[in-house]
């Protein structure tokens, strides 16, 4: 990748983090926590995004961010009160900024931001112009650096005295090291001052140590600046607004001294002198941004504020492949250890010191495995954080009022799970607002607050993560759902369904309770797709609802996709793994429950319902499998494609978490087999793919019919 592109990518990644931080802050503000820390965090985020954007020439983004920043700055300086109305505008502006970043990244599309921009401008306008004081990194462009020898001797050159009688200010500006660390640049500030009126700048080098004692990260300079012809003290202060915490600043009225000691005049528009001076007095912090090409300031600017931003835990970015390799290796280590222990214990018995050592090793390995797996996990926050925006947008589109409550966002899940969680969650939340919540009028009429609440929560429960989306809306109208299902031929008119079964009807393909298809729910994605996504993730989805009070969707998901909860079953001389998420129950059938169906089909009577019964051994052609299903254990499974099916196996060995090993790269797809795993004894066991098995069944049934027809003809 070309280095510029790499830096851009870093910028986008930073943006993602900054946008999250911004959103978090804005939501805190929405909840009334408008303390200075929060506002500053939001401000810093917007500022950093703007800074980086400027460096890459994303002018539209910068322009928008600038207005946004101006408003935030007014709030920060207590010139604007963050009322509900204001925060609402800020939230919308945050959304737009996020859009701007997306557009900048994808290089396509455009953002319709004029409305929000106007609102921001209105907010900014109420208290005068707030902008103009910003050291946009774009300004670095075009600066050249020419070293120049200057005399650093004891006697500073006498400055020409400026004859001027207008109001003047004396600014004593002494940056701290932190100012440079945040990639601010004194030169730009002084230039900003120079824009206000003629300035005289005197560098104070008195703190400059001997070269050998010089700490490159420290700040040694101070400047005395005399600014003439500038009546407005506020605009002088404004120049230093960004760095107020990172420097000593004194602004006082300037009285012409009898004999000015050392002063250099910098005329407006001739700032090079300052640059050169900084450069030649070897102050690396200050020099770097000015001497670098246009790339460097961007990097500095990005790293600076982000690094200094918060006392967040330190993180590193690691290529996922590397982590995967580590996870794999540790998995192997655990299996090898198990094999070794077994062999050693078989030969020596447990009473030896070797046995104790092995126990210790096993303990350590488990810990290592957990630690390594934990590397791949991250808080669900990253996906939850996108939801407040979704709620705002959906509520606005549907004319409803909705508030999102989030709980347990620190719950950690494997990255792959998080990545695939976004889509189903988005859909469920949209659904909760569009279908679940009533209109404000209806709510008030029903004695509820006009604003509906959607609650999103996550928690660990028994080795899995449970995510719930609950709303306090109208709940499921079971009579209506039933009616629809009958109309669409999904259930028989006289079907006797439990409440739970009725609720679950809404997951069926082609089902919609909305009287009319709105632009939100009518996107061709139904709850059936949500369920499909969840099942693909090895999870389950449940719904519980109280009519008039609201509905709750619960997702139960594995913590990682690398591991699967499986039922280990024996078939002939082989061991297979059935994904637990598909299993409903296991049973020992009576001979009388098994009915012959057609030429070689069988049905099993499960409490009055006949389900197809298939021998796994026969289906997969396993050697030594018992084909007598009445001697078998039957496992009732549910598949998306065909519904329930009974699988006959020889025995159930146990339930275990297994590490999924894909073999498609080496072998290709095999029908009925999802992947493989390695058992404790080092042998490979195949993980059955229930949907594939069912499909295989159908094909073989079709083939046998063809065969019979051909034989009969």
């Amino acid at each position, binding site marked *: 990748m070309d280095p510029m592109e790499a830096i851009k990518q870093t910028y986008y990644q930073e943006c993602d983090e900054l946008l999250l931080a911004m959103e978090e802050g804005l939501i805190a503000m929405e909840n009334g926590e408008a303390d200075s820390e929060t506002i500053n965090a939001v401000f810093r985020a917007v500022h950093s995004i703007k800074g980086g954007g400027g460096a890459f020439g994303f002018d539209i983004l910068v322009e928008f961010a600038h207005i946004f920043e101006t408003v935030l700055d007014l709030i920060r300086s207590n010139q604007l009160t963050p009322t509900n109305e204001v925060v609402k505008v800020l939230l919308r502006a945050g959304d737009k900024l996020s859009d701007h970043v997306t557009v900048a990244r994808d290089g396509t599309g455009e953002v319709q931001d004029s409305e929000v921009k106007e609102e921001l401008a209105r907010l900014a306008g109420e208290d005068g112009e707030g902008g103009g004081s910003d050291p946009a990194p774009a300004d670095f462009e075009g600066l050249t650096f020419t070293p120049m020898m200057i005399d650093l001797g004891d006697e500073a050159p006498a400055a020409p005295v400026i004859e001027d009688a207008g109001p003047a200010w004396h600014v004593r500006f002494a940056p701290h090291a932190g100012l440079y660390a945040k990639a601010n640049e004194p030169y730009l500030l002084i230039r900003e001052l120079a824009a206000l009126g003629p300035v005289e700048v005197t560098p104070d080098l008195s703190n400059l140590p001997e070269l050998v004692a010089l700490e490159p990260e420290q700040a040694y300079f101070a400047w005395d600046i005399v600014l003439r012809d500038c009546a407005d003290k506020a605009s002088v202060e404004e120049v230093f607004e960004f760095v107020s915490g990172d420097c000593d600043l004194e602004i006082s009225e300037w009285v012409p001294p009898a004999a000015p000691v050392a002063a250099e005049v910098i005329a407006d528009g001739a700032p090079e002198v300052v640059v050169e001076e900084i450069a030649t007095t070897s102050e690396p912090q200050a020099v770097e941004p000015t001497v670098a090409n246009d790339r460097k300031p961007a990097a500095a600017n990005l790293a600076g504020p982000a690094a200094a931003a918060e006392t967040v835990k330190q993180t590193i970015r690691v290529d996922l492949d590397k982590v995967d390799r580590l996870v*794999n*290796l540790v*998995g*192997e280590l655990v*299996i090898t250890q198990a094999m070794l222990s077994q062999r050693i214990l078989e030969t020596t018995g447990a009473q030896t010191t070797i046995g104790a050592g092995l126990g210790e090793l096993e303990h350590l390995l488990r810990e290592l495995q957990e630690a390594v797996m934990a590397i791949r996990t991250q808080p669900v926050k990253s996906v939850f954080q996108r939801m407040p925006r979704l709620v705002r947008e959906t509520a606005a589109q549907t004319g409803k009022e909705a508030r999102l409550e989030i709980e347990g966002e620190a719950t950690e899940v494997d990255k792959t799970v998080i990545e695939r969680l976004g889509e189903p969650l988005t859909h469920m939340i949209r659904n909760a607002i569009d279908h679940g919540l009533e209109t404000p009028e209806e709510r008030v009429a029903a004695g509820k607050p006009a604003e509906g609440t959607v609650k999103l929560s996550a928690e660990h429960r028994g080795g899995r993560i449970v995510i719930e989306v609950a709303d306090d809306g109208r709940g499921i109208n079971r009579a209506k759902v039933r009616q629809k299902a009958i109309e669409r031929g999904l259930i028989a008119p006289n079907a006797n369904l439990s409440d739970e079964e009725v609720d679950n009807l809404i997951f069926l393909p082609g089902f919609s309770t909305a009287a009319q298809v709105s632009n939100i729910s009518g996107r061709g994605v139904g709850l059936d797709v949500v369920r499909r996504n969840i099942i693909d993730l090895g999870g389950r989805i449940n719904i519980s609802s109280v009519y008039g009070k609201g509905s709750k969707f619960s997702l139960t998901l594995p913590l990682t996709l690398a591991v699967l909860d499986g039922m280990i079953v024996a078939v002939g001389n*082989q061991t297979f793994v059935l994904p637990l998420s598909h299993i409903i129950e296991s049973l020992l059938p009576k001979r009388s429950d098994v009915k012959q169906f057609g030429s070689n089909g069988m049905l099993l009577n499960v409490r009055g319902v006949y389900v197809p019964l298939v021998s796994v051994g026969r*289906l*997969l*052609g*396993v*050697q030594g499998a018992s084909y007598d299903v009445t001697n078998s254990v039957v496992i009732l499974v549910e598949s998306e494609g065909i519904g329930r099916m009974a699988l006959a196996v020889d025995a159930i060995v146990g339930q275990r978490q297994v590490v999924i*090993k*894909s*073999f498609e*790269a*080496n*072998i*290709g*797809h*095999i*029908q*009925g*087999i999802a992947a*493989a795993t*390695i058992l404790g004894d*080092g*042998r*490979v*066991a*195949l993980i059955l793919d229930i949907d594939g098995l069912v499909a*295989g069944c159908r094909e073989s049934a079709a083939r046998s019919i063809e065969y019979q027809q051909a034989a009969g003809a």
Partner: protein
Amino acid sequence: MSTTDKDNTGQDRRQYITFLATGQEFAADIMAIREIRGWTDTTALPHVPDYVRGVINLRGMVLPVIDLKARLGLGLTEATVKHVIIVVNSGERTIGLLVDAVSDILTVSQNEIQSVPDVMRETQNDYVEGIAVLDGRMVTLLGMTKLTSSFGGIENLIEHAA
């Protein structure tokens, strides 16, 4: 490190590992061979031709094993602990090749390789790169790319078998 180097006659020389199956001697480019290990019981795969013996655990990787003898249409190898699996890398795929034994390492010049006789092409051309005649021995050189693409493309074979 390249196994291709020039001898003093300017010919390309490559190193091959030779192995025995069905009493014949085969050879594969040494650079395609990742390792050689003893036979372990495989886990059978459903819906595959019989020469796909199943999969084994190769330090965490699920490795398919193909019976060379069966692939050549000469019946299944009755595998014992003395049999060997040659782990072959080719492109994206890694597969195991079940053979009777590994015998030798050969360095063969291009001019020692004869092309496959025309009459044999129908059956052998898919994976035979050529025939090397060395000290009166005849060694069939297996082209690993061709070999693994025809073996490795199991999904195609499954379709044929179905």
